[in-house]
C-alpha cells in the first residue's frame, strides 16, 4: 500500500471523527461544511475519471448534479418520497443523459469537446429553469427528504454525514478498481497516446463513452445527496460556473490520482469559505472574494499545476 493510499485512509478516518468532535465543541457548522465538501468530492471524483484519467476536458459535468437533484426534487414534489426510487432515478437518469450527450460529444475532441459539453449543460439548465411548476430559476424547497424506511433518517445531520462519508469511500474504492482494470487502462492509454492505442487495435470511442456514462451516473448520485443536503432544489447547481469549480477541484488535488479530487475539493471550498467569511480578513477582501479567488486560480494554473496529491509522490493507487 503506497503513501498516497495511507494518507487517504487517514484523511477519511479524520473525517469520520468530525461529528463527535463537532458535537463536543458545539460547532455544527463544521459538520455541515464537511458534508458539503464530501458531496462535491464525490462529484469531483467522478469528473476525475473522464478528465483526469481519460483526458476528456468536459466542461459540462455540473449537468449531472442537476439531473440527480431534479430527479429527487421533482419526485418529492409529486409525493414520491422513496429514497430508493428517487436515487435510482437520479443515477439512472444521469446515466441516460450522459449517454445522449456523450453519443454526439465524445467523438469530438479538443476545443470542440469543451464547447459542446458546456453548451449541452447550458441547454439542460434552460430546460430545468423553464418549468414554472418546479420553481423556474428560483428553484423550490424540497418537499421532504428522501425516505429510506427505517434504515436511515437523512434529517439527522450525523447519520446523513456518515452516509455521505460511506458513499465517498465507496465511490473512491469503485473508482480504484475501475481505473486499474482493463477498462481503466484503455482509458488512460487513449489519453496517453491515442494514435498508439488505435494502432494496437483499440478504438477509444466506446470506452470513452462508457466512462462518460459512469462518471455521469456517479455525479447524479452526488446531485441526489446535494438536494437532500440543502433541502432546496435550485437550478443554480447546474450553472456552468459550477462545472468550472468541479474542474478546479480535480486539478487542484492532482490529476489522475484517486485522492486528488478530495483534497482539491477541500482546498477549493475551504479557500472559498475563508475568503468569504474569515473575520481576520479585511472587508475589501471578503466582500469581493471572487476577485481574489480568480487571481489565485489563475496563478495556480500558471505556476502550480501538479496539484496537492502530486506533492505526495508515488504512481498509482
Amino acid at each position, binding site marked *: 500500500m503506497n503513501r498516497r493510499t495511507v494518507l487517504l485512509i487517514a484523511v477519511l478516518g479524520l473525517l469520520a471523527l468530525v461529528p463527535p468532535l463537532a458535537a463536543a465543541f458545539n460547532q455544527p457548522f463544521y459538520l455541515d461544511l464537511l458534508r458539503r465538501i464530501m458531496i462535491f468530492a464525490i462529484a469531483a471524483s467522478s469528473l476525475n475519471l473522464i478528465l483526469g484519467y481519460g483526458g476528456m476536458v468536459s466542461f459540462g459535468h455540473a449537468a449531472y448534479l442537476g439531473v440527480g437533484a431534479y430527479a429527487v426534487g421533482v419526485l418529492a414534489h409529486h409525493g414520491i418520497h422513496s429514497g430508493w426510487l428517487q436515487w435510482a432515478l437520479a443515477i439512472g437518469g444521469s446515466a441516460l443523459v450522459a449517454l445522449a450527450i456523450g453519443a454526439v460529444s465524445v467523438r469530438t475532441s479538443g476545443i470542440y469537446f469543451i464547447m459542446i459539453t458546456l453548451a449541452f449543460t447550458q441547454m439542460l439548465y434552460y430546460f430545468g429553469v423553464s418549468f*414554472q411548476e418546479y420553481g423556474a430559476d428560483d428553484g423550490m424547497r424540497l418537499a421532504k427528504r428522501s425516505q429510506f424506511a427505517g434504515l436511515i433518517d437523512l434529517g439527522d445531520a450525523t447519520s446523513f454525514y456518515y452516509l455521505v462519508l460511506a458513499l465517498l469511500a465507496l465511490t473512491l474504492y469503485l473508482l480504484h478498481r475501475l481505473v486499474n482494470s482493463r477498462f481503466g487502462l484503455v482509458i488512460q492509454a487513449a489519453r496517453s497516446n491515442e494514435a498508439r492505442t488505435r494502432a494496437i487495435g483499440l478504438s477509444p470511442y466506446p470506452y470513452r463513452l462508457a466512462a462518460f456514462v459512469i462518471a455521469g451516473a456517479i455525479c447524479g448520485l452526488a446531485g441526489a445527496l446535494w438536494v437532500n443536503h440543502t433541502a432546496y432544489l435550485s437550478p443554480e447547481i447546474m450553472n456552468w460556473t459550477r462545472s468550472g469549480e468541479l474542474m478546479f477541484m480535480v*486539478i487542484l488535488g492532482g490529476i489522475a490520482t484517486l485522492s486528488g479530487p478530495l483534497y482539491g475539493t477541500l482546498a477549493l471550498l475551504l479557500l472559498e469559505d475563508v475568503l468569504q467569511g474569515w473575520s481576520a480578513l479585511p472587508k475589501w477582501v471578503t466582500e469581493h472574494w471572487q476577485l481574489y479567488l480568480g487571481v489565485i486560480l489563475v496563478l495556480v494554473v*500558471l505556476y502550480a499545476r501538479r496539484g496537492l496529491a502530486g506533492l505526495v509522490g508515488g504512481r498509482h493507487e
Partner: protein
Amino acid sequence: MILFAEQTLNGLQLGVMLFLMAAGLTLVFGIMNMVNLAHGALYMVGAYLATFFFQETGSYLLAVVLALAGTLAVGVVTEVVALRTLYERDHLDQVLATFGLILFFNELIAILWGRAAIYSSVPAWLSGHLELVAGLRYPLYRFVIILIGLGVAVGLWYVVARTRLGMLIRAGASNRTMVAALGVNIRLLYTVVFGCGAALAGLAGLLAGPIYAVQPGMGELVLIQVFVVIVIGGIGSIRGALAGALIVGMVDTLGRAFLKPMLATVLSPTAADSAGPAIASMLIYLLMAVVLAFRPEGLFPASR
C-alpha cells in the same frame, strides 16, 4: 407577415452581434489553438465603458471610440500578462486560467459599478424608427447594428483574403513554426489577432448595451451562444462564424417568437405555454447536436 419580417430582422441583428463575438474567438481558436473563456469579459468591458463614457461625455461617438480603445487595451494587457504562457499549455489549463479571469473581471466590474444592471441609453439621433417598407417600422438603432455587423464582415473578409496581415493569419493557422522561421514575429502576430478579437468583442458589447442588460456576468451567457455558433460554423473560419452566427441568430429569435403559437395549434394552450419557451431556449443546442451528428467538424471548417 409584418411580425415575421420584424422577427427576421431581429434574428439578423442577433446574428450579426454573435458574429462580432465569434469572429475574434474563432480566430484565436484556430490560429493560437487557445480556448479563451475571458472573451465574454471583453464584451462586458465594452458595454460598461461605452455606457460610462456616454454618461460622462455626452457624446456617443466619443464614447464608442473610447470604449473600443479601452477594450482593446484591456485585451492586450490581459494577453501579455496572463495569456501568453497559455498558448503552449493544454486546453484544460487554458479553460481553467481563463475561467479564473472571468471571476476576476466580473468582480472587478461589480466593484466599479455594482452588481445591479445599469442603464445604457441610445443617443437621440439613433433612436426612433425607420420605415423600411410600407407598414414595416423597425428601430433605427437595431438596423444600424445590422449594417455595422455586415460591414465588419465584409471588412474582415477583405483583411483576411486580400491583405498581408490576412495572409500571415492564414499562414499562421496552418503552420506557425514555419511562419516563425520565416522571420515573422509570431508573438506580435498573436497579440494583433487577439487585440482585433478583443476590439470586436468590445464592439459587440457596446452595441448590445442598450438592448440587453448591462450587468456583471453578461458576457458568459453570450459566450455560450458564441460557442454554439463556432461549433456549427466550424473552428477557425470567418465564413463559418458568419454562417453559424446568422443561423443561430435566426433560429433562436424566430424560435422564441413563433414556437409557442405554432405549438398552440397542436397542443393545449397551457401545454404550449410551458413547452414553447422551454423548447425555444433549447433550440440552438438541439441544432448544434444535429450538426454534430452529421458534420462534427462544422459547416465551414477552416481548411488545413
